[in-house]
C-alpha cells in the first residue's frame, strides 16, 4: 500500500516536472517576445498558456522517424538519456526542509554533478549517432564546453561545501537559511552562475546548438518527441540550475511571511526570469572565446575563490 502510494506520488512529481518544462517553453517564448517588441503566442487559453499543451500534442503526434544513416540504438537512446538525467536530478532537490525525495542524502551534490556529466553523454551520443557533420560538430562543441565549464562549477561548489560542511542539498540549504551564502561567496556565485548557464547550454552558451552556424547542432537529425526529449532535458536542466542558484546562494527557502516552499519557488522563478532576460540580451561568443573564458578566466577565479574561502574558514571558522 505504502509502496503504491509512493509510486503514485513519484508519477505525480514526474508529471508536474513535465508540465513545468512545457510551461517554461511557453513562458520563455512570451518573455522573449516582450523583450523583442513582439507579442508571442497569446491565442490558446488565458495569456496563451494552452500553447504549451498544443506544442506537446504536436510533438507527440509527429512521425517517429529514424534516418537511414543513423546508428539506430544510440540514436533512440540518446534523447532518453538526456531527459532522464535531467529528471533524476530533481530527486535530491529539496523544495523546503523535508519536502523532497532524497534531499537529505549525504551525496546529493555529487549526484547532481554526476548527472550533469551523464547529460553530456546523451548530447554527444545523439550528435554522433546521427551521422551528420553538423550534429557531430555540435556534439563535439557540447563536450568541450561541458568539460571546460564543469571544473569551475565543481570548484565553486567545493567552496560552498567547505562553508556548509555538508554534501546534502538540504544541509547546504540550511547553511544559507541565516545569511544567504552569496554574502560570503560573491565570487563563487559569479563563477557558479556563469558556469551554470554554460552547463545548461542555453544562450549565450548555446554553441552546441548554434542555429546560425550548425542548423540545429547536435539534434539536427531529430524530430518529433525525440527532439522533444532534448528540449525537455534543456528546460529541466535550466530549472535545476536556477533552483541550485536559489538554494545554494540566495538563501534557499528562508524569507518572511510566505511558507518555505513558496520562497524557494519564487527565488527559482526569479533566477529563471533572469536567464530568459539574458537570452534576449547577450550574443553568442565565438567558440575559442568560450573556451578561453572557461580555462583562463573562470577556472583561475574558481581556484582563487576556493583558496580564499579555505583561508577564511581556517582563520575565522565557518558561519
Amino acid at each position, binding site marked *: 500500500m505504502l509502496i503504491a502510494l509512493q509510486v503514485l506520488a513519484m508519477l505525480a512529481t514526474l508529471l508536474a516536472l513535465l508540465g513545468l518544462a512545457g510551461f517554461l517553453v511557453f513562458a520563455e517564448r512570451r518573455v522573449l517576445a*516582450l*523583450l*523583442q517588441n*513582439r*507579442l508571442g503566442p497569446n491565442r490558446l487559453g488565458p495569456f496563451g498558456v494552452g500553447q504549451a499543451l498544443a506544442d506537446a500534442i504536436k510533438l507527440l503526434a509527429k512521425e517517429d522517424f529514424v534516418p537511414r544513416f543513423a546508428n539506430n540504438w544510440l540514436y533512440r537512446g540518446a534523447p532518453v538519456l538526456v531527459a532522464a538525467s535531467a529528471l533524476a536530478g530533481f530527486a535530491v532537490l529539496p523544495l523546503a526542509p523535508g519536502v523532497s525525495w532524497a534531499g537529505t542524502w549525504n551525496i546529493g551534490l555529487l549526484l547532481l554533478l554526476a548527472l550533469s556529466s551523464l547529460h553530456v553523454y546523451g548530447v554527444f551520443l545523439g550528435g554522433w549517432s546521427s551521422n551528420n557533420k553538423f550534429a557531430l560538430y555540435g556534439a563535439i562543441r557540447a563536450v568541450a564546453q561541458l568539460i571546460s565549464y564543469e571544473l569551475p562549477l565543481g570548484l565553486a561548489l567545493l567552496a560552498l561545501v567547505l562553508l556548509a560542511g555538508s554534501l546534502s542539498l538540504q544541509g547546504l540549504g540550511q547553511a544559507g537559511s541565516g545569511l544567504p551564502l552569496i554574502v560570503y561567496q560573491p565570487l563563487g556565485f559569479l563563477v557558479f552562475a556563469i558556469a551554470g548557464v554554460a552547463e545548461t547550454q542555453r544562450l549565450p552558451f548555446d554553441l552546441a546548438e548554434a542555429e546560425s552556424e550548425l542548423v540545429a547542432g547536435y539534434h539536427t537529425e531529430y524530430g518529433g518527441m525525440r527532439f522533444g526529449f532534448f528540449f525537455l532535458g534543456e528546460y529541466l536542466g535550466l530549472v535545476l540550475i536556477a533552483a541550485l542558484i536559489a538554494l545554494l546562494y540566495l538563501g534557499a527557502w528562508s524569507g518572511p511571511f510566505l511558507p518555505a516552499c513558496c520562497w524557494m519557488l519564487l527565488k527559482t522563478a526569479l533566477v529563471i526570469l533572469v536567464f530568459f532576460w539574458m537570452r534576449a540580451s*547577450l550574443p553568442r561568443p565565438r567558440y575559442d572565446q568560450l573556451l578561453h573564458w572557461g580555462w583562463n578566466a573562470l577556472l583561475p577565479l574558481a581556484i582563487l575563490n576556493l583558496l580564499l574561502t579555505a583561508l577564511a574558514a581556517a582563520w575565522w571558522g565557518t558561519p
Partner: protein
Amino acid sequence: MKLWRRFFASFWTTLRQLPRRDTLSYPEQQPQLSRRWRGRPVLTRDADGEERCVACELCSAVCPTQCIALEGADRPDGRRFAESFRINFARCIYCGLCEEACPTLAIQLSPEFAFAQSERGDFVYSKEALLIDGPGKHPDYRYYDHAGVRIRALPPAPAVEPRSNLP
C-alpha cells in the same frame, strides 16, 4: 571595464523594449496600409461609370508571371473593351507592373491582401470579380479626354516647326 559596461548595457537595451509592441493582434487589429500598398489588382471605372479597360493587353504582356489573360472586342460605338478578363492570383506576385503599364489607369493594385482559398481553381478571378464600381486612385482621369476615338473630331494641331524647338 569597457566589456562589463557593454555587458550591462545590453541588458538595459532589451529591458527598455518592454513597453513597446510592433506586432498587431491581426484579425482584431487591422494594419494601417499605405495608399500605395500593392495588394490584389482590380479593374476600375471612370467617373461616368464606364469601364476604363480598352483591352490593349499591355498588362498581360508585361506581367512577369503571365497570370493575366484577356480578350478584347469592339463595342457598337467603336470603342474597345475587354470581353473577358481573368487573373490567376495563384501566380500573381503583386509586382504592380500591370498598373504601371496600363495606359488608361484601368488596372490598379488595391490594398486588399487577405484572400486565401482552399482550391487552386478559386484563385482565378473573372472579370465580374475584378471589376469595381469606383474610379480607384485617380478619380478624374478619363482616357478618352486625351486620346482614343474622340481625338478624330478635334481639329488637327498645327504642325511643329522643328527649329523652334531648339534650346
